[in-house]
């Protein structure tokens, strides 16, 4: 009697399960233990984008997720492939980005023997994943994949890692178990807000100087339009975190800008002076509070709305706590509002306007400087453009001066602050949304941490526009050394910088040098007209500073402005 072949290969079961979850693209990099998977990939409709470094593939998956709201998927081989993913996993964890990270692992029989390219990636990433799985039986794959996606995207999103031993991928003739989830221990918090919605509405009606403080949770929940309604209805001004950029379009009359370390003067004054702070999808990060939370918004009644109960009262004392989805909670409060008198905010706005007029973000408009570049870029690019950034001064100049960002059109490494994020994130964004324009704003230091991904751009003909604010230094570090270390500059010069235009050209990417203010606009116009990728290398002075800036350890109103 011949044995009937009814089952599938482990790797095929995995790919089928990914397809069931709606995965259309995997960002990855192959290796020995992944051979069965890369072989099966040839027969799968799922697209695979080959990066040039595993850190690039995980950042790309992250960028993909931020501009779509979907779960990003990346793949790396065992050992060095897996460890190269670690920074990207931490990045997604700190910014609550849903990722499913697949890693190859040595065969189950070799685990624990320090075999070639074996590392305990589950152990290494335990503190920076929402959850993780080591697959020991290929029949579990459909369930594990389903659970992983569910965990990654629900509640407070985050990265989930699945470690895949080679034999699990290679096993033939596998008849899988059901994909029914077994997640008794997984809790999504929220819902029961008994009476608290009314409490918030009452607090609002009693307030004279309310402020809405919006963060990444607003974006995650898709609460942008509700937030806008809420602000317009109540007249409350809005300040955002770095993660909250895009939660209200810049230029909206209620928006005071970013709050915190490099926030606008008006935003910081408003938070310090308000009598009601409604914090939505934020975690009172120290980049906002500038130190322990006990001197933050001290004059205010504080309402904290967040999906994660762990964030409630972690940093700042709060008066009303609501655990739940930002959109749902804001909608409920809006519904409750008609029963209450709305706050009279006329005097408050007189004050806010006065601050705004006296403290514009001012800079010299007659020479080539980064602020001008950002405003010009914004004018030409418009709100439909997706913008990704790296980490450093240029990131803050985007946050302060880039004029319009629509929801889900912004990707930046906020919580981790990982240099090298921007270029691969732009790749992920462009792959996710091929019809939309993607612009990366980077610095000469950060760019060189992921410069190899120009190869990925070239291979996939991605029309990404790269704006390089080239100051020849690690500008943000230089700025700290200037302001707080008596101008003792240590290891910030990047003298070995290449001619970046030539580097781009070597990859078949067009490069444009910009050395003067007059050429900025025409360079952007040319870049946007060109159908392919373009690098615009803009030489700026190393002496530029990101201002305003709150002094270390000071209350957020104590800002260095000039």
């Amino acid at each position: 009697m011949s044995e009937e072949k009814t089952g599938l290969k482990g790797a095929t079961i995995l790919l089928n399960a990914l397809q069931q979850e709606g995965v259309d693209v995997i960002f990855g990099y192959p290796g020995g233990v992944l051979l069965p998977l890369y072989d099966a990939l040839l027969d799968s409709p799922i697209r695979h984008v080959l990066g040039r470094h595993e850190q690039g593939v995980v950042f790309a998956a992250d960028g993909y997720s931020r501009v779509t709201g979907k779960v990003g998927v990346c793949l790396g081989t065992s050992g060095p492939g897996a460890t190269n993913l670690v920074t990207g996993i931490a990045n997604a964890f700190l910014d609550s980005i849903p990722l499913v990270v697949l890693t190859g692992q040595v065969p189950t029989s070799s685990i624990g023997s320090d075999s070639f390219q074996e590392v305990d990636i589950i152990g290494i990433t335990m503190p920076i994943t929402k959850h993780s799985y080591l697959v020991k039986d290929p029949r579990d794959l459909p369930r594990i994949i389903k659970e992983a996606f569910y965990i990654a995207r629900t509640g407070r999103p985050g990265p989930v890692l699945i470690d895949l031993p080679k034999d699990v991928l290679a096993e033939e003739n596998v008849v899988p178990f059901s994909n029914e989830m077994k997640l008794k221990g997984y809790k999504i918090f929220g819902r029961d807000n008994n009476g608290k919605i009314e409490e918030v509405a009452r607090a609002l009606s009693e307030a004279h100087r309310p402020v809405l403080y919006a963060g990444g949770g607003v974006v995650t929940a898709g609460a942008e339009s509700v937030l806008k309604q809420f602000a317009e209805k109540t007249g409350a001004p809005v300040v955002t975190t770095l993660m909250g950029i895009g939660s209200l379009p810049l230029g909206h009359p209620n928006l005071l800008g970013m709050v915190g370390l490099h926030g606008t003067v008006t935003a910081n004054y408003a938070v310090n002076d308000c009598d009601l702070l409604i914090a939505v999808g934020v975690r009172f990060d120290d980049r906002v509070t500038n130190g322990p939370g006990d001197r933050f918004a001290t004059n205010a009644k504080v309402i904290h709305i967040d999906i994660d109960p762990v964030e409630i009262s972690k940093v700042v004392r709060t008066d009303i706590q609501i655990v739940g989805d930002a959109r749902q909670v804001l909608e409920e409060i809006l519904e409750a509002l008609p029963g209450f008198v709305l706050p009279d905010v006329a005097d408050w706005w007189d004050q806010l306007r006065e601050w705004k007029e006296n403290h514009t973000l001012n800079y010299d408009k007659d020479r080539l400087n980064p602020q001008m570049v950002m405003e010009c870029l914004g004018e030409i690019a418009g709100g439909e453009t997706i913008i990704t950034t790296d980490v450093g001064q240029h990131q803050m100049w985007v946050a302060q001066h880039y004029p319009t960002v629509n929801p889900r059109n912004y990707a930046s490494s906020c919580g981790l602050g990982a240099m090298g994020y921007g270029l691969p994130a732009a790749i992920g964004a462009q792959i996710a949304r091929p019809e939309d324009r993607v612009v990366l704003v980077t610095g000469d230091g950060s760019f060189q941490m992921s410069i190899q991904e120009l190869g990925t751009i070239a291979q996939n003909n991605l029309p990404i526009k790269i704006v390089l604010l080239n100051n020849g230094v690690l500008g943000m570090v230089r700025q700290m050394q200037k302001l707080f270390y008596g101008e003792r500059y240590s290891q910030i010069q990047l003298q070995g910088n290449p001619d970046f235009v030539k580097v781009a050209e070597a990859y078949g990417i067009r490069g444009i040098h910009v050395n003067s203010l007059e050429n900025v606009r025409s360079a952007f116009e040319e870049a946007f007209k060109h159908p392919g990728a373009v690098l615009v290398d803009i030489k700026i002075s190393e002496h530029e500073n990101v201002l305003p800036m709150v002094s270390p350890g000071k209350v957020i109103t104590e800002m260095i402005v000039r």
Partner: protein
Amino acid sequence: MLHTLAVLVENNPGVLIRVAGLFTRRGYNIDSLTVCQTEDPELSRMTIVVNGDDQIIQQVRNQLSKLVVVHSVSDLTGESVVDRELALIRVQVSTETRSAVLQTVDIFRGRVVDMGRTNITVELTGDIPKIDAFVRAIRPYGLLELVRTGKVAILRSET
């Protein structure tokens, strides 16, 4: 203040490290931790005694609840519970001290489970203050070794 948390977790490898890792990472202090399978073989019960003010304990509970492998967390502190710890204690004895030591063991209702030429080993069960008191009483005779299980606790049934 010490709190006793009863934590129901999945009975899988790697669960202990997830829980323990959380404590070290967040800087919470574990006073004691016991873990064993429950009446349901798929679940283990951890009894964790942790030190902290109310706010810290709330954070610990929330953080634990967030772990996918944790099914439930309850704080038994202030509840009506039966709690016990088991200790094995090796004490030095000589002809002069032997009877005094044995008398002390008797008073605390301990049991001698092993005997050497110069020492005895005592098994003692009780709540933590009782074991602490025994250790204090026996120490002057020469405390050679002390092994404690950590506290286990269960809610008293409603009558």
